[in-house]
């Protein structure tokens, strides 16, 4: 009996040691769980040490920027520590959704118009209106478009870091060499095609006027908007087969005219980072991307780049979706006040603005834009002017249902099938519609 007791003592001791080891990580959270007592204004939350987590996506340059931004924040509010989680856009979304399903989402989560509706449906973002009402978040300097773009069903979920509009980024050096006049805002699809043909005469065989963008759902979505439609309507498709046939036909015309790269080269290009893109390497002269990427592309090439509006349907609606990048707060957050303090710092304080320098496009707050306006570089000046010019004809980005990722991929796959000559345009459009409906109803 005695020996038996000795064994159990040993085992229990072992368990205690194990428990002690694993318990350490949980400690800081446990001690800071006590609610922020009495902190009514944003300047005076509880002075107890608090750790919050923030997650974002981006490339290395953005990670560096975010890190120094958060260091600055911690310096200013020494009682708050910000743990950082970051990765590429795809990694970010997958990880975040898994964390959120486990009730473990970071306190502050980057988001954008593309994800907002989905994240709200998945309970990853909380309603921020109470924090605005209590003065923890200040959006009074924000432009109306930025506030509206952060709303779902009338409630504010996203605090805008900046806004951008998809346009045609083009290599003006190549345009000048080819002697082709530079495109102007509000040009039409016919202008786009004619410009491409003129450029191609100069570019010859190893470079092309434009990328083959028949597979980009963002482009297709804008094409549909000009027809007063949209890719999705609730859980169903928001357009007819003929719309897709017209879209594929336009790009087929571009391919047959030889102004876009052959299918295999376009397929290999995929979604390579800006510095490896055909635009940066001078292999294509035009590409449709978000306006905030102009400065990133410009860093990778000696040629001069500029941006104009996406081609328009002359008889259709003159409208573009406004893409907002920002952040929300997780409903799981134990420290919403501190999270709000961080968001407020990023969007309303000049310290933050000088570090972040309109990474996501012109900031929501005009005051913050003025802080950095004087030391903006040339590409940013072009970008800001483009966005300001187009802002009046934008509307918030349409909502996307579950399964939209696969439907977006179908645009790419079916456009490739046409480009490789595996399907006729009619077949591709039929297959798209039936597969998309099947995915959305699954």
């Amino acid at each position: 009996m005695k020996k038996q007791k000795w064994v159990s003592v040993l085992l229990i001791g072992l368990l205690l040691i194990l428990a002690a080891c694993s318990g350490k990580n949980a400690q800081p959270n446990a001690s800071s769980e006590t609610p922020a007592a009495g902190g009514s204004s944003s300047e005076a939350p509880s002075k107890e040490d608090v750790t919050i987590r923030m997650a974002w996506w981006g490339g290395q340059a953005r990670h560096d920027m975010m890190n120094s931004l958060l260091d600055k924040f911690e310096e200013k509010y020494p009682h708050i520590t910000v743990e950082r989680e970051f990765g590429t856009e795809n990694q970010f979304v997958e990880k975040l959704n898994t964390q959120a399903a486990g009730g473990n989402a970071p306190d502050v989560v980057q988001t954008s118009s593309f994800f907002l509706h989905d994240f709200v449906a998945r309970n990853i973002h909380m309603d921020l209106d109470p924090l605005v009402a209590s003065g923890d978040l200040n959006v009074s300097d924000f432009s109306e478009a930025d506030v509206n773009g952060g709303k779902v069903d009338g409630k504010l979920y996203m605090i805008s870091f900046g806004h951008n509009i998809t346009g045609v980024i083009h290599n003006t050096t190549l345009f000048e060499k080819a002697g082709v006049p530079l495109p102007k805002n509000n040009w039409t699809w016919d202008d786009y095609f004619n410009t491409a043909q003129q450029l191609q005469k100069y570019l010859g065989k190893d470079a092309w006027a434009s990328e083959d963008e028949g597979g980009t759902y963002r482009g297709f979505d804008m094409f549909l908007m000009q027809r007063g439609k949209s890719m999705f309507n609730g859980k169903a498709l928001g357009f007819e087969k003929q719309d897709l046939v017209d879209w594929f036909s336009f790009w087929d015309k571009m391919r047959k005219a030889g102004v876009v790269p052959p299918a295999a080269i376009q397929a290999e290009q995929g979604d390579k980072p800006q510095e490896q893109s055909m635009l940066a390497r001078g292999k294509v002269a035009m590409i449709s991307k978000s306006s905030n990427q102009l400065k990133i592309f410009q860093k990778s090439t000696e040629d001069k780049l500029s941006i104009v509006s996406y081609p328009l349907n002359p008889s259709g609606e003159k409208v573009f979706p406004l893409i907002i990048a920002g952040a929300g707060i997780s409903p799981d957050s134990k420290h919403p006040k501190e999270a709000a303090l961080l968001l407020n710092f990023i969007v309303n304080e000049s310290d933050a603005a000088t570090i972040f320098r309109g990474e996501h496009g012109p900031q929501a707050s005009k005051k913050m834009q003025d802080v950095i306006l004087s030391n903006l570089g040339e590409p940013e000046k072009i970008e800001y002017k483009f966005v300001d010019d187009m802002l009046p004809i934008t509307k918030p980005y349409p909502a996307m249902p579950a399964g939209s990722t696969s439907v977006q991929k179908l645009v790419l796959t079916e456009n490739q099938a046409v480009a490789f000559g595996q399907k006729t345009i009619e077949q591709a459009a039929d297959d798209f519609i039936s597969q998309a409906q099947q995915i959305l109803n699954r």
Partner: protein
Amino acid sequence: MLHKAQAILYLKGVRMMRRVLTRRRGEGLIPYLFLAPWLIGVLAFSAIPIFTSLYLSFTNYNFIGTPNWIGLRNYLTMFTDDPQYLQSLKVTFMYVFVAVPLELAFALGLALLLNRGIGGLGTYRSLYYIPSLIGGSVAIAILWRQVFGAEGIVNQTLGVFGFDMPSWIGTPGYAVWALILLKVWQFGSPMIIFLAGLKQIPSDFYEASSLDGAGRWKQFAHITLPMLTPILLFNAIMQMISSFQAFTPAYIISEGTGGPVNSTLFYTLYLYQNGFGNFQMGYASSMAWVLFIIIGVFTWLAFKASDRWVHYDN
């Protein structure tokens, strides 16, 4: 003396332990305590997730709220209403049944060469083994993208000989071959196993047969190959299972799309797209179970057929 004392102490210890562990029923718990670290691991990270996924496979679950029971609908959709699923099956079968035989043939060929008593065997063995260690990695898949690109080293080399090839990665008919070659390139681990097998074959078999006038080819066909069949079976099954589950190369090389035109849409890649792109966890789980059944059936078939061709010495 010392040894004797130690032995007595040891025996006493054993007897004591035995008494502690078995004397009473209540004490039956103690073995489980010792097993606990392993048991908790198996339950938490294998058993519970496996059965949860079986349950999810009969539901519609998108990470929000509770899963909806929909019976066999996921399984029916897969085979009757999802052309991309059938495409992923086609691509995967093509990959498995081309890449594995090629890889094994390559591995066996090199093992035979290395087994001829050449100098520096250790060095060669290590060199050829390296691709197996790193071949499944993200870094190699990225490298492969470059190597088989339109302006990659493969096309430049072929260009020297006057072959004008399109981008392997970007052309539907070629892309899967880049993946097959990547698999074949990882022949190192079956090669090591073949080499070990070759060393096991008694040399008197060869001596006796050469006295009877058998040439190299006859020796290979009638001694080496039959003696190696158990190892061949082992290698074939292991490689088949890992090929059915291949994911990283297709994911990286097609940038997650399975393109061009779904030509590299591996089963696991499509499963992943459904689970983590669309958050259709129910559908992804049912796909996982079908893959499990497919692998099970083919492994069973391989064992079943092995009666006919695998030769066991005893």
